[in-house]
């Protein structure tokens, strides 16, 4: 069932008239007929959790905003830069009004002064298209002044970033919007509090996918939403499947379906009929899962926040990267660390120095020039980063090393320099796997 990717069922849903014909902005009108606090209660009751990675309860987040502050903001996180993630892009391309509507419902619920949609700069075309959709909605009286005749007004603006993964971290995003380098802030104060948000004002930051659920919840009700998914993970989720599957792409499915169903029923199974070896369920940043072939029971893990945690990983943003039997996991770890080294904002030492050294040693391992002790060395560097950094990027960077070394030690050991074996002198070998 498609709540978010309805654009697949309804042609031209990005156009306002088509969206209106299919119940568009009814959720906003419903919200406007309620008290702001009632809207927050409804979203709370739906069980909706943040889709940006952390799974924080959305209604609860909104309820943290102090009511008596005159200036408040909603910022929409469309930075979408995690390796393997491409869901928010499909939403803003095919169902943009549902995002605008969801953001406005949030703005009404917290009585915000303005909404800013922060898009990664590479969404250049999408960002400009979104400006057009907002303008269309403005002409129809659905954003900016006297929204839907309610007397309530709220502008919606886009803001393009310029290439920096760290700007997806919520406080770095706020810095970037304020016209600074995108470096995370020290908390507290938290964004919801006075002094911690955008321009120092209380601010809600939500992911695109999170907010796009909200109009549906307003119209269908919290009970209907809770019927989808599991006890602790309500609703549908867009799973971004990439890597060695026959049919990579976005799949919107109820939370709690199994990994097996996602990969084999929907994504067409492993490319070329090969066996599956590993899954990165949350892009480069979450713990890798070891899968010993297509029959492994780990494939029966349910894709929910709680079940993925029990299985030793995370659901995160559900960017599921699949690797077949021929994949060298040491190479995967090297690719992941190259990403985090590149994206570290450099503000705190453990992350800046740690990613630098991890990349150096991983590249040495890939060049078959490392010693056995280098495998312990990378684990130790990574462990020393955990919990020691200002933002979660430091932990994200440690994860691909710690878990790959633990679960696939043989893939690292085979690169250890043998005095007799000729070393292959080249950093980060191209994928040895099926391409």
């Amino acid at each position: 069932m498609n709540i978010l990717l309805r654009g697949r069922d309804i042609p031209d849903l990005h156009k306002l008239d088509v969206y209106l014909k299919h119940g568009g902005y009814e959720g906003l009108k419903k919200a406007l007929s309620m008290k702001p606090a009632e809207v927050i209660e409804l979203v709370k009751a739906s069980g909706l959790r943040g889709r940006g990675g952390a799974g924080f309860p959305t209604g609860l987040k909104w309820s943290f905003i102090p009511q008596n502050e005159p200036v408040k903001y909603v910022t929409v996180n469309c930075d979408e830069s995690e390796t393997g993630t491409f869901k928010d892009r499909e939403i803003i391309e095919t169902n943009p009004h549902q995002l605008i509507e969801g953001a406005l419902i949030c703005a009404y619920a917290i009585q915000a002064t303005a909404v800013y949609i922060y898009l990664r700069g590479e969404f250049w075309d999408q960002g400009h298209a979104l400006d057009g959709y907002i303008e269309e909605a403005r002409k129809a009286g659905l954003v900016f002044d006297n929204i839907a005749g309610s007397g309530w007004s709220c502008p919606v603006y886009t803001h393009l970033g310029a290439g920096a993964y760290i700007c997806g971290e919520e406080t770095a995003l706020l810095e970037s919007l304020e016209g600074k380098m995108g470096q995370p802030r020290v908390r507290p104060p938290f964004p919801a509090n006075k002094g911690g948000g955008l321009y120092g004002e209380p601010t809600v930051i939500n992911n695109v996918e999170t907010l796009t659920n909200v109009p549906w919840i307003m119209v269908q009700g919290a009970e209907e939403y809770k019927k989808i998914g599991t006890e602790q993970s309500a609703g549908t989720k867009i799973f971004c499947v990439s890597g060695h599957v026959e049919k990579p792409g976005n799949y919107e499915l109820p939370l709690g379906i199994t990994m097996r169903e996602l990969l084999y029923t929907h994504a067409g199974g492993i490319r070329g009929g090969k066996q599956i070896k590993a899954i990165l369920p949350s892009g480069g940043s979450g713990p890798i899962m070891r899968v010993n072939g297509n029959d492994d029971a780990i494939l029966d893990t349910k894709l929910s926040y709680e079940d993925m945690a029990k299985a030793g990983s995370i659901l995160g943003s559900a960017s599921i990267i699949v690797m077949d039997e021929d994949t060298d996991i040491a190479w995967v770890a090297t690719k992941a660390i190259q990403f985090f080294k590149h994206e570290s904002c450099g503000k705190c030492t453990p992350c800046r120095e740690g990613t630098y050294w991890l990349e150096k040693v991983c590249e040495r391992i890939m060049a078959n020039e490392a010693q056995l002790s280098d495998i312990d060395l990378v684990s130790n560097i990574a462990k020393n980063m955990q919990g020691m950094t200002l933002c979660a990027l430091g932990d994200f960077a440690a994860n691909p090393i710690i878990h790959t070394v633990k679960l696939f030690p043989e893939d690292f050991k085979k690169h250890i320099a043998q005095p007799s074996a000729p070393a292959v002198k080249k950093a980060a070998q191209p994928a040895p796997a099926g391409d």
Partner: protein
Amino acid sequence: MALTEKYGELIQKTFAKYPDKRSAVMPMLHLAQQEYGWVSPEGIQEVAEICEMDPTQVKSIAGFYTMYSESPKGKYWLQVCTDLACALGGADKFYEDLKAELGVEDGGTTEDGLFTVEHVMCLAACDKAPMLQCNFHFEEKLDMEKMRKRLAEWRAEAAKAK
């Protein structure tokens, strides 16, 4: 102040979005880059004046974000994703072949000044690997045959523009 003269209305419209002029620094750097092809020292100076900021601050912001180019690039700036998910779909090999086709190294520009190639991290199109952005427009599900066609089209487009 070429930018203020040419884009006065756009600049005012951008200011109107934010309670603070400083927030316009990123859109203004994008504007400068579009106008001059890169974020030149003159561009930095102009943006600083527009946003009432210190030029060194503007420069450090331009340096922080990878999309702002601090040196002139080819007419077509090709950014190929070689990050993990694309690499599993053959992006590393594709990038090697593309560099060989154009006779340049990573980050290099062809002698005719038409193409700059660079490898970049995930561009949110991992299901359509190999892929790249050309001047920030997506080109997806590529192979060298398709790529040669696109290169020819861009060459023709550039010749026509001359």
